[in-house]
């Protein structure tokens, strides 16, 4: 390895679910202050800020967070807009800035406010799509899921097994929005259809909340209070935003992104102890498992059967409940969970002796994709 590994040393949370009394700016600040504290740092230790654009309030940005934190000068400051795939991308840029001596400690942050202050409606389906009733990500993903179903025979019960598994995990996470609300496969099958083949329980939650993380060098990480979690491997893969312009509807960029991540990490699939896969819908899980190489193309449906993604299965996935059952904080649902798993801080839902985790983010009708492979 030519470059020294960086580490995630701070995680910051806010209340999540419904936060009507919180402004976007306050949520950004709360998550950031908590992440900096978790890293054992003070705001002036931060010399880079990367903010993921919040579509509810695009005026809260890198510069406002810098002002609120009282940091006189930064060496890196930007807004990232790869939608749900942003945090994995932000952390890669943070890592490159640290490895090249530009920054010491980089703060990455995000806020979602879709539960109580919806973003610009239909923002991803401009123009002709509106005339044809294509409204938002669920319709777009349904088109991809239907093609997968027609090509490979993927069943609604297989999608349902993903939803039921993550709901089961959420019962081990008191912070999950679906904590105390278990679900059976029959519940999934009986939930109303949103857009075929997706039922309501194939689709992620809507949520408010903020999250942040601090990235530093491997050397400095040893002096931080929390167990360091190192970035072993990383990748990105971005396909065209417009569904009809893509080469295929079932290839998302996870393939390219995952290949970069496995190559840079120098490990194999069997080395992964815990997974955090972006679950805008249950379909996203099935196609990512194929594209990342955990199974062959078209085998994702059968692969998830028999509890393979369960906490006691071969590839424990989305132990917090994911976006389907914990909270919809986009890419920021998965990354903090994998970091916490590798810290060993997950209590009842802890994957025993988890050493290496893989986490993915997707965004914009599954056009953007990022992958991180992390180790303790």
């Amino acid at each position: 390895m030519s470059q020294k590994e960086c580490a995630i040393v701070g995680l910051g949370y806010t209340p999540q679910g419904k936060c009507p009394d919180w402004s976007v700016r306050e949520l950004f600040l709360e998550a950031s202050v908590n992440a900096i504290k978790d890293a054992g740092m003070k705001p002036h230790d931060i010399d880079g800020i990367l903010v993921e654009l919040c579509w509810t309030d695009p005026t809260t940005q890198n510069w406002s967070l810098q002002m609120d934190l009282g940091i006189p000068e930064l060496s890196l400051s930007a807004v990232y807009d790869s939608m749900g795939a942003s945090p994995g991308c932000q952390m890669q840029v943070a890592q490159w800035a640290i490895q090249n001596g530009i920054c010491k400690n980089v703060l990455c942050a995000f806020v979602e406010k879709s539960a109580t202050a919806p973003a610009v409606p239909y923002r991803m389906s401009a123009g002709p799509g509106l005339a044809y009733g294509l409204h938002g990500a669920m319709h777009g993903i349904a088109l991809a899921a239907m093609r997968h179903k027609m090509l490979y025979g993927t069943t609604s019960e297989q999608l349902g097994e993903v939803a039921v598994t993550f709901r089961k995990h959420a019962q081990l996470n008191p912070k999950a929005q679906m904590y105390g609300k278990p679900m059976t496969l029959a519940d999934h099958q009986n939930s109303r259809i949103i857009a075929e083949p997706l039922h309501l329980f194939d689709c992620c939650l809507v949520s408010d909340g903020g999250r942040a993380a601090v990235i530093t060098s491997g050397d400095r990480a040893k002096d931080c209070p929390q167990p360091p979690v190192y970035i072993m491997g990383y990748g990105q893969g971005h396909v065209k935003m417009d569904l009809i312009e893509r080469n295929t509807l079932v290839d998302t960029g996870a393939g390219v992104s995952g290949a970069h991540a496995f190559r840079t990490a120098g490990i194999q699939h069997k080395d992964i102890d815990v997974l955090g896969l972006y679950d805008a819908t249950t379909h996203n899980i099935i196609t990512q498992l194929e594209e990342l190489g955990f199974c062959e193309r078209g085998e994702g449906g059968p692969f998830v059967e028999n509890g393979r993604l369960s906490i006691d299965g071969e590839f424990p996935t989305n132990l917090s409940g994911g976006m389907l059952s914990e909270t919809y904080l986009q890419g920021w649902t998965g990354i903090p969970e994998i970091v916490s798993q590798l810290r060993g801080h997950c209590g009842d839902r802890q994957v025993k002796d988890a050493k290496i985790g893989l986490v993915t983010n997707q965004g914009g009708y599954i056009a953007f994709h990022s992958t991180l492979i992390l180790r303790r």
Partner: protein
Amino acid sequence: MTTQFKKPSPGITPETKPFWDAAKRNEFMLVKCVGCGFYRNPVSITANICPECGSRKPGEWVKASGKGRVHTYTAVHRTFDPSFEKELPYIIVIVELEEGPRFLSNMRDAKPEDMKLDMPLEVVFEKVSDEVTVPYFKPAK
């Protein structure tokens, strides 16, 4: 008094106006690159550039067959848009056109259970206002 909900406009731009003008004449047009012959999508590419060869010359509008096959579809059972409510479940289809590009549309004369991968389709036009006629697709005869 009943409320009339008008469907949203397809967002006609200077670049896509010839397509929608042709639709008013019940003609389905595509843009053919004068540099390499690649058929550009008529409504989703806004810049005057060929994504295949990079030519900046404006494409040539040509009449297309209006025929294609089902690439994928979804039947929508819930909508935020009241103008679609009485059509629920409506079918969004991605048509693989004979000439190559894909086209997003809605189905006519088909139920969700009729839909099959690669099913042959043909265009059908509906006038929705004096300004806009919309191309939809139906099972080919």
